Each structure stands twice: as C-alpha cells, then as structure tokens.
C-alpha cells in the first residue's frame, strides 16, 4: 500500500495473472537455462554445463518467488474523476489518470495471457511519460472496463 485513502476501493487483477507470469517465467527460464548450460558444457566440461544450467534454473525460481509480490502489488481504483493504478515492489508507483485526459484505450493479450483468458488494458494520454496499464484482467472485465473508461473519457474530454 502506498497512499492510504479510505475512500479508494482498490481492485486487483485476476488471480490467474500469477499463473500467467509463472508460465512466462518458465517459458523464458527453460530455454535460457538449456542453451546456457549447453554453451558452458561445450566450452568447459559437462559438470560446468550442468552447474550453469542449474544456476540459471535457480535464478528463474528466485524470480518466481518475487513474482507473487509483484503481482500482488498491482491494483487499480476507479474514482469519480480519475483512474488510479499502482504497481511495483522495489520501485513503487502510483499513477492518477483523469478520465478526461485519456486519448485512447487498448486491450492487448499475448499468447500466454490469451490461453488463460486474460488481457492487458492500456491507457494512453497525450503525455508519453504517463504509463498506465492494468495487466491480467479477465477478458470480459477488460472489455467492460475499456468501454466504461471510454464513456467516462468522452464525457469529461478536455483539449490539450
């Protein structure tokens, strides 16, 4: 929790997000460990290759421990005039995006997310620096939220 405000009702991404992140980590770790191990194995000896491979797997597992906290850190809150998004464990961030400032909203889903029925919602303002995305939303929720935000944005639209 960063800024506590009793009036803010934080909503969390789907519990499936953790699984999606785990699968993604696994998909990255396995080939990296395999290739790293093979390269070390051919360059050095077989035990070295095995050691490097296992080491990379351990890194992946450690990253996995961290994932749960990262996923738990995501949250968003729809307030009356703006959307709040918070994220991050090591570097904590909390963004406030007024509905009237949203230029467009898109919903994307990578292969892993898609297989779990998840989607990422991304909000764009005229500022390149404002990064507001909510990953791991249920597909139906994401579509609903997108339409909702678009309607709110239209109602409160402001020029540059």
């Amino acid at each position, binding site marked *: 929790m960063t800024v506590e405000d009793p009036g803010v009702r934080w909503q969390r991404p789907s519990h499936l997000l953790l699984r999606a992140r785990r699968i993604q980590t696994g998909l990255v770790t396995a080939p990296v460990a395999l290739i790293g191990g093979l390269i070390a194995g051919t360059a050095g000896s077989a035990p070295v290759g095995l050691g490097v491979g296992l080491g990379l797997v351990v890194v992946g597992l450690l990253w996995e421990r961290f994932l749960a906290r990262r996923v738990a850190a995501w949250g968003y809150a729809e307030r009356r005039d703006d959307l709040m998004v918070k994220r991050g464990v090591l570097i904590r961030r909390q963004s406030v995006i007024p509905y009237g400032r949203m230029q467009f909203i898109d919903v994307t889903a990578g292969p892993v997310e898609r297989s779990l029925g998840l989607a990422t919602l991304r909000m764009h*303002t*005229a500022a390149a620096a404002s990064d507001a995305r909510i990953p791991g939303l249920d597909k139906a929720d994401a579509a609903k939220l997108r339409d909702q935000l678009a309607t709110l944005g239209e109602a409160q639209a402001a020029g540059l």
Partner: protein
Amino acid sequence: MNGLPASRPPAEMASWHRLHPLSPLVRTGRHLVGLGVVVLILIFANHSSGGGGNLIGDIVVAAVVLVAGVISWLVTRWQVADGVLRIDTGLIRRDSRRFPLSQVQAIDVVQTGLARVLGLAELRLRMAGADSSGGRLACLRLADAERLREQLLSMAHAPTPTAPVGTAGAAGSPVAPSQVGGTERMLFRVRSERLAGAIILSRTGAYAAAVIVAVVLIVALTGKPSVIVPFLAFAIGVVLSVWRQFNTEFGTVVAAAPDGLRLRSGLVQTTAETIRPGRVQAVRIVEPLIWRAFGWCRLEVDVAGPRQRRENRSEGQRLRALIPVGSRAEAEQMLGELLKTPPMPSRRAPGRARWKAPLSYHFLAWAGDDQYVAAARGRVCRQTTWVPLEKVQSIRWVQGPLQRRLGLASVRLDVAGKRVTGSVQDRDVAEANEILARLPDLARAARARGLVR
C-alpha cells in the same frame, strides 16, 4: 496564381492555389548546394587526374532532382475551406491532407537562406499530433505567407474559447486579421555577443573546443596534417552543430501580439513562430553551471506538437527557447508574461534527501498553488520547471528502494509530449501523499476554469 489579394473574400480563399513557381528551386536548394560541394571536392580531388565523367553524372543528378521538384510543384495545390486547410500533392500516389485549423497549435514562417534571397518563405503548421509531418506550404512570397498565417490563425482562433495565458493587454477576443501585427509589444531581444559566449560555454561549445584542441594537438605532435583526414567529417559535424545553434538562435526576438507570442530568430535561415496563448504546456528555466557564474539562464517552453525542423532532430529534447540566453531578471519577466503568477520553488526537500541526492539536494525544491506547480532540480545544470495544472495529463507517485528507506517519495506531473515532466523530487512521504491526493482535484478545477474562459 500564388497571389493572395489583401482583402480576399472567403470564397476566393476557398479556391485552389498553387505554390510559388520558384519553390522547387528553394526546396531542392539544400540538396543542390550539397551536391555542388561534392562536385567541387571531386573536381579538386581529381584535379591532377582530370576526371570529367563524375561532373557530368552529378549534373544529371542535379537535373533529375530539379525536374522532380518541378513536377512536385505542378501537382501540389492548396485550399482553405470550412476552416480546413487542404493540401493535395503527389503525382503517382495522390496525397490529400486536411488540417483542421481549430487543431493548429502554431504556425511558423520559415525562411531558408535561398528563400530569403528570393523573398520567399515557407509556412509550417504545427498540429498536436506526435509525428512531425505537419502541414507545409513551401514556398509562398513572404508577404503572402505572413498574411496567410494571420488569416489562418484568426480562423483557428474564432471557434476556440481559449484565452491568452498572462499576456497582459491581450484579451481573448478573436482578432480581426487586419489588427494583428500592428500591436506587438517587444519582450526580449537576445544580445549577439552574449549568445556567442553562451554557446561557447555550453556543452556544444565544449565539445567543439575539445575537438579543435585534439585536432591541433594531433597535427602538432605528428607534424602531418593528413592524419586528421579520417576525423574530418566528425570535426565538421561538431563545428556545424555549433554553427547551427548560433544560426537558429541568433537575433531571437520575442514580442507579445494579440494572437500570442511572436518568436523570430535566425541568422541565415530565419524563423517566425507564433506561440498561441494557452498552448504552453510547460516552461523551463535552465541554468548550467558555467552560465550561473555569469548570471545567465535559458528559458524554454514546451508547446504541444512536434518540433518540426528536421535538421534539428539531434536536439529533439531541446525545447523552443524563448530566451536562448539572458539574465535571470529577463527570464523572470518572460515567465511572468507566460504565466500569471508563477510560484517560485521555495519548499526545500527534507535534509535526509541529501543521502539520496547528495549533489542535487542543493537546489531541490518545489512550490505549488491552484494554477501552477514549480519544481527545481539538478546540480550541475539547474532546471526549474513550471507546469500549469490545467495541462497536466497524468500524475505519478514514485518511490525507489532508497527513497523508501529514507521515507521519501517523488511526484511527477506529465504533460503532453515526451520532453518535459514536472518532477517534485524527494519529498517526505506524507507530503508526497498529500500532493498526490490533492493535485488531481486542483488540476481538474484548473481545467474546468480553462474551459469556461
């Protein structure tokens, strides 16, 4: 054909116009000059061997470029109708572009060196979009370009309710074209010798000096001037960048006019821009270390939309300098002109921020009221940024691991574009939380006021 009668009824403006017949020459002029230089070098290099074939080839290339320019002129036409500027161009792939005048951020009149000789000028429309392909009308006669700009600006003004921000004596009423131009009020004029000094003492100047010293040293040590030939292109580039900066910023004059701030600058290539009131996204005063010793600073504004000069792409993160170099007093006067009551960053960061930012702690401060937020940062190059709350796109609260240990947090205010962020650095967590809690409402109120005005 290209002539624009002074008192032209809208119907006549709505007809199709061509650009000035000499415009292909001007548009390709830069390439022709570059080609000429290459030809000269080749002639010079082949002087002994007497190779004439290259010369003919280059002339053919030049002719092709010129013919392409003429064709492009033949198929290009423009029209103003229903508050929309239409530019049609393209022979094989027709390209018809519409620029709604209500979306125009600014209109510039640019004169390249060759255009100046011929009395022509280019009209550039800056739109809010992020890509740099705004509307270009190259070239028109200078007088026509200026008249057209005033007409377009007044058309662009009429439907929008935005009022000037802080330009005293310029109420936000739509201005008749004839009025514009006569009522300018001079605000700032850069002093050439100070500009030259400032550029020499800036980073660009330091690079150039280092390169020149290195070249001289190499020649002196080896005694063979030919050693530097491989580095020649690099050296020329560095010298050119100094020249370019001097060229663009030379003779900068800022004047307040009813339709916004008029900015004129340039030595060989002159530019005239009008920064429309209410379009300023952020104001920044930059004071590099060496400049501070002389009490100099630079005042830049961020206006929505891309910076269009293509040759300045390397200076992408540099903003439009209203004051390329000036005294602090001049900058503060200009600041007062741009913003009504600019707060000065006075609230220092807590002492423990020293651990996180040992150098920049010295200047870290912020201030805010219900209209603006001002934030200062940077040690070597002190930067003070003013962001109108009306323009804030999103607000971010950020806390890194070290900041968390020290009980600090930063708040960033994003404005349109990717260049400026108002950054209230390293505040006490409670204070940062309060800023984050209060700013969205203040920003919304400021926006609402802006819409009503």
